[in-house]
């Protein structure tokens, strides 16, 4: 018996399930690059300005000839597609660095094509990135909230509502107290309050978590809108006094802030910008390198097993949802204390849903969500930077990019985004 079993077991191991999605997608994109970037590519050049006038270290402008870049990108893309084909034929899968380098190459080709096709043919990269941070920061806070909730098994569709509640409360409390930090704390409390409703209804009353999330978004939009009309429009001596929050100051870090491109983007921010970077690192470390994180992931993946091992599933979920609310609330404060100077109705404008997209595209991982948020933020800001220029591709299509990528991700066409197994399923002991 054992002699007959021995050869069959390795044979089964060698049975390769080939996944052709990646080579096919690469091939289609490479063909797109061939036609659009190389053959039909615009003449002339694309100029990327790397430094601003006031910078300590001045970098020369990066000038790329459009069609030549297009040809180089196309050739490399085709090479990567061929490599992906070979890898798939041999091992059934493609290695991860292939996808990453393909994406980077393609984005470079796309950028050069877009910029060279505009009427001005140049773009300030620093402006593009610093502008993008205005969108990226709240998205990252929102995604981190989602990470904490979903990793413990609670779907958080209410990110949008948490951000909006944070923005409103921060503006109101900071205006009354005249202290931006007080506004920040209040925003966290408001986020926790929204989260508390989410937790009570989905964990205590076992209501479908998606329904609660959707409804909470409407509730917060209604509440903030109503209170905005009733309170924030009260005028004393001709001026509104409850919607004039003080700003959180920018705190440039001495040496780091002088690094070209990276400095202005990451190291000339308000305290919220640094808090965001710290939180990404801390939450990643806590989730994947500590006992606490292991428990949370266990609760999100297999609550019965976690319960058997003595983890209180619902208490863990409750705490995580509340913590997520605090983080998203603080992210909401960014709107009124840093980005703009007052609250307006529905000012989060769907960023909470982009945060959800970033969370999924980043595979429920804090660092992944951060990178996805950067990508989405740059795409979104590119759209507004280019909205005044005549471009080869309409800005609305750039704005669709995050959503389209997320759909591709959840349907398994670009990588495979798999949520925590028990996410969205209430846990009833017994």
């Amino acid at each position, binding site marked *: 018996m054992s002699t007959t079993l021995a050869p069959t077991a390795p044979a089964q191991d060698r049975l390769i399930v080939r996944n052709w999605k990646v080579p096919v997608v690469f091939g289609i994109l490479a063909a797109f690059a061939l036609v659009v970037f190389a053959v039909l590519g615009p003449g002339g050049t694309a100029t990327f300005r790397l430094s601003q006038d006031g910078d300590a270290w001045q970098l020369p402008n990066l000038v790329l000839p459009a069609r030549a870049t297009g040809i180089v990108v196309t050739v490399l893309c085709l090479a990567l597609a061929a490599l992906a084909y070979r890898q798939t034929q041999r091992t059934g899968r493609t290695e991860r660095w292939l996808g990453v380098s393909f994406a980077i190459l393609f984005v470079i080709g796309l950028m050069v094509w877009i910029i060279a096709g505009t009427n001005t043919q140049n773009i300030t990269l620093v402006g593009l990135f610093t502008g993008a941070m205005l969108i990226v920061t709240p998205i990252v806070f929102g995604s981190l909230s989602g990470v904490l909730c979903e990793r413990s098994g609670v779907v958080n569709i209410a990110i949008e509502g948490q951000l909006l509640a944070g923005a409103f409360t921060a503006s109101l409390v900071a205006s009354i107290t005249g202290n931006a930090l007080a506004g920040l704390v209040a925003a966290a409390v408001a986020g926790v309050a929204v989260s508390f409703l989410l937790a009570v209804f989905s964990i205590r009353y076992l209501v479908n978590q998606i329904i609660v999330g959707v409804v909470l978004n409407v509730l917060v939009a209604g509440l903030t809108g109503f209170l905005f009309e009733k309170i924030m429009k009260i005028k004393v001596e001709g001026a509104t006094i409850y919607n004039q929050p003080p700003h959180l100051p920018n705190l440039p870090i001495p040496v780091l802030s002088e690094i070209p491109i990276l400095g202005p983007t990451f190291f000339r921010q308000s305290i919220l910008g640094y808090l965001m970077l710290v939180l990404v690192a801390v939450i990643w470390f806590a989730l994947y390198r500590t006992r606490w994180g292991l428990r949370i992931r266990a609760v999100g993946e297999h609550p019965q097993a976690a319960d058997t091992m003595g983890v209180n599933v619902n208490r863990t979920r409750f705490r995580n949802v509340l913590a997520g609310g605090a983080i998203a609330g603080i992210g909401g404060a960014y709107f009124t204390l840093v980005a703009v100077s007052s609250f307006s109705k529905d000012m989060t404008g769907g960023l909470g849903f982009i945060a959800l997209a970033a969370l999924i595209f980043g595979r429920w991982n804090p660092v992944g969500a951060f990178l996805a948020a950067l990508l989405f933020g740059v795409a979104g800001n590119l759209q507004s930077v280019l909205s005044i220029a005549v471009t080869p591709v309409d800005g609305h299509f750039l704005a669709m990019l995050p959503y389209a990528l997320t759909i591709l991700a959840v349907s398994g066409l670009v990588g495979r985004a798999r949520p925590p197994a028990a996410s969205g*399923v209430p846990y009833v002991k017994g």
Partner: protein
Amino acid sequence: MSDNRAAPEAAEAASAAPAASAGEADLTGTGTAASPGAAPGQGNRILREIMSGNALVSVLAVVVALVIGGLLIAVTDERVGAAAGYFFARPGDLFGALWASVSEAYGALVRGATYDPTARTWLGQLGIFETLTIATPLILAGLAVTIAFRAGLFNIGAQGQIILGASFSAAVGFGWNLPPVLHLLAVILAGAVGGAIWGGIAGVLKARTGAHEVIVTIMLNYIAINLIGYLLKSPLKDPNSSNPVSPALHDSAVFPLLLGPNFRLHAGFLLAVLAVIAVAWLLNRSTLGFELRAIGANPSAARTAGMVVSRGYIIVMLIAGALSGLAGVAQVAGTEKSLDAEVAGSIGFDAITVALLGRSTPWGTFFAALLFGAFKAGGTSMAVNANVSIDIVLVVQSLIVLFIAAPPLIRAIFRLKSASSRGAAA
């Protein structure tokens, strides 16, 4: 029959394949209690629902939501604040002010939504017709959420489906030249097709790749918003206007008005009623509807029974998309008569709350849509006459749904006996 078998297995399936059945097993917490009663006689069912206390919970949820909304209105009213300042001197004033502020606001709401004898013109008195007009797209989009619900899918994408339907029907409405009746039919068909395409994408992805329909439909909503932004920038834009709007639809392409030129109520309302009847028949009387409900109750059991679950997902999302598309038609060919970026308003999201309030039954959705239409119509009059922001309507609507989705909470507030066990057994 299969429903009875499905009930114990639903819990099993939920634990065996949690990721796949995240939105399927139990949508409202009461969904399982409501669905088994749907098959037998209609009259019996309605009677039993009231007896079992589910309808009572709905009514009480509305009451509690209105009370909380009223508190919010009262607390933020200046007169109440002033009276509270000398509460101990004359406590009666505070309660008088409270009553005045709330009754003024809700009075304006009710009068604006139904009949207002104090309005200056007799046309302005009949707010009921405005209620029906606003309810029309809500009924259609609500049905789109309802029918997907019954097949176990959570269609958050009504918003995007409405936009696509509206764009398609507007393009046909001002771009083609057809004889009167034929043109309107073409506009309706185009809207249904546009919405069905958008819904179908989510259905196909769900069926073929298992992509969660909630994520896909949310993302499709935002793609649709950007798509209409692009369409109104060049392809569908009115060249004679500086604003991003389409040219007006031809007269042959719009719904005829039902009550003459003084009211906005149009024939789209009749279309909505027809759609309710059709969906009710489809769900409760047809083989397809039985399959869809079986898939919604327990996909594994449905598969075992020989039904093709993936086909069901695609079909139901096509139908749901088409219904949302018809809501877009009602907007473009009924009230707006041209296409703009705000054509869907918040209808797609209101539709979710409408379907939840209607307990995912076609006629329940119909009456829930009428209620929300009344809220909107009355909210406008409340904003004008009682100086209460229309946003309070959003608060009340969302509270209603929260309370309805959590019957134990309402039972706890009113100390009702748990009726769910009786309801489920029946």
